[in-house]
């Protein structure tokens, strides 16, 4: 890695780490919300659906601002988290993960929801007649059949998390080694005189990661198809 300097490598590693945390923590929630929106029958389901999709249509700065209000040192949740668990989110990489998770959440829920809606309810009925209860059916039938959508959602959300800029810089600022992810590093490089080469290298890394993600997701989808009998 001769052509990346240590700061740039740091930014790359940080980006991957933030995206990984973001996706890992939001995946179970995304499956839960996808289930609620696709299968749930409760009052306010449409409102919940709209709320989940909000980050897609809001300026990222607004999301970052919202997070500051909620999770800031004097925010409603932020104060409680710091007081009870000693968890600080503002200006930390966990905060960056939270910001990217919120921003990429609608993409993940969308992909998972689509795959859930494609699961043949008849197969779940068949599992019922074979003696499988609700949790059993979900784990042994529904979840495996949703797998392509879940993986697609994970890859999309991971890629989006790598590239999230506005919400991150608003919520956790641009601290080298803590919250300066790839796009933030690229932005910083462009602000400095003589940073064009660094910017070009970082852009190349972003393109490579994005392309790799797309190819990986395509390959996964293809290799899963025979396993699911399609």
């Amino acid at each position, binding site marked *: 890695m001769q052509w990346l300097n240590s700061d740039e490598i740091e930014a790359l590693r940080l980006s991957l780490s933030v995206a990984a945390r973001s996706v890992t923590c939001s995946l179970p929630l995304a499956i839960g919300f996808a289930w609620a929106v696709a299968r749930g029958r409760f009052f306010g389901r449409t409102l919940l659906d709209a709320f989940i999709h909000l980050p897609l249509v809001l300026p990222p700065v607004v999301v970052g601002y919202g997070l500051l209000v909620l999770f800031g040192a004097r925010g409603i949740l932020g104060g409680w988290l710091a007081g009870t668990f000693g968890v600080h989110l503002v200006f930390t990489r966990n905060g960056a993960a939270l910001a990217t998770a919120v921003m990429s959440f609608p993409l993940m829920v969308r992909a998972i929801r689509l795959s859930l809606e494609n699961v043949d309810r*008849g197969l779940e009925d068949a*599992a*019922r007649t074979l*003696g499988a209860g609700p949790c*059993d059916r979900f784990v*042994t039938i529904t979840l495996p059949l949703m797998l392509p959508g879940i993986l697609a959602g994970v890859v999309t959300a991971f890629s989006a998390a790598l590239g999230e800029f506005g919400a991150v810089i608003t919520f956790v600022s641009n601290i080298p080694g803590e919250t300066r992810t790839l796009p933030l590093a690229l932005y910083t490089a462009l602000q400095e005189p003589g940073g064009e080469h660094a910017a070009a290298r970082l852009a190349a890394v972003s393109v490579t990661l994005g392309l790799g993600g797309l190819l990986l997701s395509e390959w996964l989808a293809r290799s899963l198809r025979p396993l699911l*009998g*399609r």
Partner: protein
Amino acid sequence: MLKVTAKHRRTGFSLDVDFDLPTPGVVTLFGRSGCGKSTVVNIIAGLLHPDEGRVALDDTVLLDTSIPIRLPAERRRVGYVFQDARLFPHLSVAANLRYAERRAVGRPYVTFEEVSRLLDIGSLMHRRTHQLSGGERQRVAIGRALLTQPRLLLLDEPLAALDAARRDEVLPYLQTLRDELKIPMVYVTHDFDEVLRLATHVVLMDRGSVTAQGDVASMSLDSRLRSIIGPDQVGAILDGWVAGFDPASQLARVEVGNGTLNIRTKPLATGASLRVQLLARDIIVATHAPQHLSVRNSLQGVITRIDGDDMDADLITIDIGAGRAIDLGTQRVLARITKAATEELALRPGLAVWALVKSVSLRGYPLGACRPQPRS
């Protein structure tokens, strides 16, 4: 005994059924598409909850909306074979079967190996489900349902999606289940041929309600059944027993009513039960004992009724069971003859006649040993 009462109303459809079915045995729910047959099996399985109803299998109440009891489908121990098989696509054939086996409760009466042998699916075990033919899929689906050790097996048009050749491939396996495992089955179909080959009991449904029910022999004489199956399929069904088989002529002598029919079949053991269909259009009616005829079968009886048929024909019902020592249930045959012939022969109820039919017109369907044996 399976007792089902259910009322269910949805836009454009209303179901109101009430019937008791004997177990074991194969009960067919027969009727045109959309008459509510599948709704009934879904209610029995617990996949659909009726507005009002009660379902009881022997002494277990599965559903009673008045108490209320509502056993979930997964705890009813009722097997279900769907029209589209519904094998799990992400599992192999063996894994599909094991899925059911692992979730079985109660005393097992059939093992994995037995199911594999009875349905001849041992060679398919490692295949993925999308690599199976339609007939193979249904055999695996039947095996999977059996491995839950069900008290009752529901089959919702399991052969409807198959072509004639595949249907003939699967039917013998269903006969084997009926005769060897003696598992009670409720079988939904709109194909009368399947009724003929499998059923011991028929429930006739039309527009959400039960219009008639009874054993196959008596139902074959029912005018409501006749209106569904069409004039060419109309004919009495007699369940008789084999008195002997002549290997040289390939003819089985089958005792029915107060006579004997010679039927071309594959070799059958003496004493085996055989169902015979005598199509009304193939029956000749004679007012004197026949002589000098090539016809191999003549049954003596008495005309009990004459109904006008469509197309200028009469449907003559002839009782051939009078004075018989052996109780074989309803023993009547139907003959369709022209109105002109009825007049010329002066046929009327009470008249003694002979019903004649050629051996080659008869088809026999083995019934295993689930029919009553001679008392003598």
